[in-house]
C-alpha cells in the first residue's frame, strides 16, 4: 500500500467540502488537491472528516487480563471506532503504578501501531488508596504520564487527594477522579431510586458521586490544581461542576456515551449487559448530561471501554462484572444522542472527542485541526448510515456491548493513524500491515 493518501471530497467539521492529502505522517494539503502522484485515493463523498478521535478513558486490560482485551485488540477496537489515541487506565495487573509498567504499556502500543497508547498512571500504590504511587517517575519516564487515576476506585482519603492534586502540579499533571463515596455505595448494584427499591437491588445514590465532586473541586481550588472528573453520571454532578467552573476552578469533566443514551429502566430485566459503574441513571440525568455536554459544562466524551469475558456477564446480576465495551460504538452513540438530536454539530464532536481530550491529557500530535502541517490523524464517518449494531462491529476481544441489537446511526468508514490506514472501507486493516507501517515510521524518526 502506498504511503500517501488523498481523501477526496470529504466534509470538514466546519461543513466545507475539501480534499485532504496525507503524506509523511502529516496533513500535506487541504482544499482542492490535484491528483497527487502515487497517492491512494479514498473517495470521501458524503463522509465527514474528523481529527482522529482521542479517548481519555480506556481499559486495555494488558498486562494481566488478556482474556478480556490486549493492547493489540483494544487498539483494533479503537481503530474500528475512529480513535487514533487512547489513554489506558491503570487497573491492570500489575497495576500501572511504576515507570516500568507504563513504559511496557507504551511499547505494546507502539508495536501494535493502531493508535497512540498513552498510559495513565495510578495515583496510589496498587490502587489501594493508601500512599502515593511514584507519580514523578511515571511522569519522567518514556511514557511521559500526565494523567493519573485510580479509576475503579475513588481516591477517597481527602488528605491523599489533596497531596496528589498538589504533587502533579510539578509536571503539569492532572488527577482524573472516579467520584464514588465508598461508604455510601457499599454493595451498590444500580442507581438508587424507585426502581432499585422495586427490584431489590442495593442502591448507588447520586449523592455518592456529587459529594466527592464537590469536595474535590474545593480541594482543587484551595491548592490551585487541575482536576478531571471521570464519567459524570448525574444531573446534580453537572450542577456542581457548573458552579465550580463559574467560580474559576480548573476542572474538566467527561461523560460516557452510555450515560448519554441509556437509562436505568434497562436494569429491570436483570440483564448484566447493562451493569456498569457508575450505574445507568434516570432520563432526567441523561437530559442534563446532554445539555451539559452541549454547553461545555462537560468538556468531553470518554468511552470507559471496559471489556469483560463472556462468563463475567453470564450470571445473576450481583455476581456480574461492571462495565461495557464502548470504543466501537462511541461515535454512533454520540451522533444519535447529540448530533441527530440537534444539540451539537460535527465541529462540536471534533472538540469533545478529539481536541479537548488531547488537551486535557497533554497529548501532542493529536486533536489538531484538519489543516496543513497537522499530524495525519484522521477519521472518516458516514453520518447517513444506519444499521443494527451487531458483533460484526466489535473489533476487540470482548462482546459486552449494551447496544447489540439496537439500531444506531453513523458508521466509521476509515481511520488514519500517523498517516497509516488502520481502518479502510469499514474494515480493520491486518495487524502485520499496520505493525510494519508503524515500524517504518518509527525507524524514520517520525514518532507522533
Amino acid at each position, binding site marked *: 500500500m502506498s504511503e500517501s493518501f488523498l481523501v477526496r471530497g470529504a466534509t470538514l467539521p466546519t461543513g466545507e467540502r475539501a480534499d485532504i492529502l496525507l503524506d509523511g505522517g502529516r496533513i500535506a494539503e487541504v482544499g482542492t488537491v490535484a491528483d497527487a502522484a502515487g497517492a491512494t485515493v479514498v473517495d470521501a463523498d458524503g463522509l465527514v472528516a474528523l481529527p482522529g478521535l482521542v479517548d481519555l478513558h480506556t481499559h486495555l486490560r494488558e498486562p494481566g487480563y488478556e482474556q478480556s482485551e490486549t493492547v493489540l485488540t483494544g487498539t483494533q477496537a479503537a481503530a474500528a471506532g475512529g480513535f487514533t489515541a487512547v489513554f489506558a487506565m491503570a487497573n491492570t495487573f500489575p497495576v500501572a503504578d511504576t515507570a516500568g509498567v507504563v513504559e511496557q504499556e507504551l511499547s505494546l502500543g507502539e508495536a501494535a501501531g493502531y493508535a497512540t497508547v498513552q498510559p495513565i498512571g495510578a495515583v496510589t500504590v496498587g490502587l489501594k488508596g493508601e500512599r502515593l504511587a511514584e507519580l514523578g517517575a511515571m511522569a519522567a519516564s518514556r511514557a511521559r504520564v500526565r494523567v493519573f487515576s485510580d479509576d475503579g476506585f475513588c481516591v477517597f482519603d481527602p488528605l491523599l487527594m489533596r497531596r496528589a492534586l498538589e504533587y502533579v502540579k510539578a509536571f503539569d499533571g492532572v488527577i482524573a477522579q472516579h467520584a464514588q463515596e465508598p461508604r455510601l455505595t457499599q454493595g451498590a448494584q444500580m442507581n438508587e431510586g424507585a426502581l432499585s427499591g422495586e427490584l*431489590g437491588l442495593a442502591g448507588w*445514590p447520586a449523592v455518592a458521586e456529587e459529594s466527592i465532586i464537590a469536595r474535590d473541586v474545593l480541594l482543587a481550588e484551595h491548592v490551585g490544581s487541575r482536576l478531571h472528573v471521570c464519567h459524570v453520571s448525574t444531573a446534580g454532578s453537572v450542577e456542581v461542576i457548573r458552579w465550580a467552573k463559574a467560580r474559576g476552578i480548573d476542572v474538566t469533566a467527561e461523560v460516557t456515551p452510555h450515560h448519554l443514551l441509556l437509562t436505568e429502566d434497562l436494569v429491570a430485566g436483570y440483564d448484566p449487559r447493562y451493569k456498569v459503574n457508575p450505574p445507568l441513571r434516570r432520563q432526567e440525568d441523561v437530559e442534563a448530561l446532554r445539555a451539559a455536554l452541549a454547553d461545555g459544562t462537560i468538556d468531553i466524551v470518554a468511552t470507559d471501554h471496559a471489556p469483560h469475558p463472556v462468563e463475567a456477564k453470564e450470571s445473576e446480576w450481583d*455476581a456480574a462484572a461492571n462495565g461495557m465495551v464502548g470504543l466501537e460504538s462511541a461515535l454512533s452513540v454520540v451522533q444519535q444522542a447529540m448530533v441527530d438530536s440537534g444539540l451539537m454539530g460535527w465541529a462540536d464532536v471534533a472538540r469533545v472527542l478529539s481536541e479537548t481530550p488531547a488537551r486535557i491529557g497533554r497529548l501532542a500530535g493529536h486533536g489538531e485541526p484538519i489543516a496543513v502541517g497537522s499530524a495525519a490523524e484522521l477519521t472518516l464517518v458516514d453520518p447517513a448510515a444506519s444499521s443494527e449494531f451487531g458483533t460484526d462491529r466489535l473489533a476487540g476481544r470482548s462482546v459486552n456491548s449494551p447496544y447489540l441489537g439496537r439500531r444506531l446511526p453513523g458508521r466509521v468508514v476509515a481511520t488514519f493513524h500517523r498517516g497509516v490506514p488502520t481502518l479502510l472501507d469499514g474494515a480493520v486493516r491486518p495487524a502485520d500491515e499496520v505493525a510494519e507501517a508503524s515500524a517504518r515510521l518509527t525507524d524514520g524518526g517520525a514518532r507522533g
Partner: protein
Amino acid sequence: MRHLLSTRDLSRDEAIALLDVAEDMAAVQEREVKKLPTLRGRTVVNLFFEDSTRTRISFEAAAKRLSADVINFSAKGSSVSKGESLKDTAQTLQAMGADGVVIRHPSSGAPFTLATSGWIDAGVVNAGDGTHEHPTQALLDAFTMRRRLHGDASRGRDLDGVRVVVVGDILHSRVARSNVWLLETLGADVTLVAPPTLVPVDVSGWPATIEYDLDRALADGPDVVMMLRIQAERMHGAFFPNSREYARTWGLDDHRFAQLPETTMVMHPGPMNRGLEIAARAADSTQSTVREQVANGVSVRMAALYLLLSGERGEAR
C-alpha cells in the same frame, strides 16, 4: 403458569385461582392419606443457595405430597464463591431432567435470570431472591388471611378492603415486596411501618401508605398486623441505635398487643425474634396465625407446583 417469579405479574383472577387450588390441597391435608399422585414421575429440584430450612422443607413436603421426586441441591454461599456459576448449575439440573426448580438465592433477580436465560427448560419457582421477592410467602399469607376471615367460604374471595399493617425492615424484605403487590391485586389496603432508614428511598410508586409511628398505624384496629423479622446484621449497619430502642418503638410488645381488637390477626413469616419485633404473648395468642401460616405454606406450595408442572405448560409469567 410457566414460572412463579413474582407476585407483581399475577392478575387478580390468577391469584384467586391459585388460592382456590390451595384450598383443595388443604382439604387433602386433612385426610389420613395426605398424598396425591398428580406429579408422579416429575422431578422437582430444591436449589438453595442460601440456608432456609423452613422454606426448603415446606417445598419438599409440598412436592412429596404431590408424588414428585425431590432432589435437594444445597449450594450454600454464593455460586461464585463455590466456583460454579448459576449457568453451570442450571445446565447440570437440565441434564438430570429437572421438571421444576425451586430456587432460593441471595441475589435479587437470580430466579428471573434462571427462567429467562435459556439454560434450562424447567418451570422456575422463586423461593426468595435477595431483597426482591418471595411470592409463595405472600400467597400463603393471603391464603391465611382469607381463611381466617371467610373460613370454609373462602373460595373465590378476594381481600377487598382488608386493612393490613406490615411492620419492620421493608428495605431488605422480599416478604414485604411480594405482599405489597399481591395485597394490592387482591384489594387490601396496606400500610408499611418502619424506621425511615429501613424504607426504600423512593416508594412513591408503591400501592401502600408509609407510616413511621407504629401506634398511629395500630390506632384504627387494623384487620391484620404482620411483623417482619429483624435480621441481626441490621443492628450493625446504623439502621437503628440498638435492639432495645427498636423493640420499644417498632415492636409489637404486650402493651400494643393488648390495645388491638381481638379480631386483629397477628402474622409473622418466621423465624421470630421473640421479645424484639414481637412479644411472646402476641406470638402465642389465639390471634397469632404463625402456625397456620406454616401449615398453609405447604398447601400453597402444592398449588404452585401443581399449576406449574401438571398438564399443559403455559406462557412465561
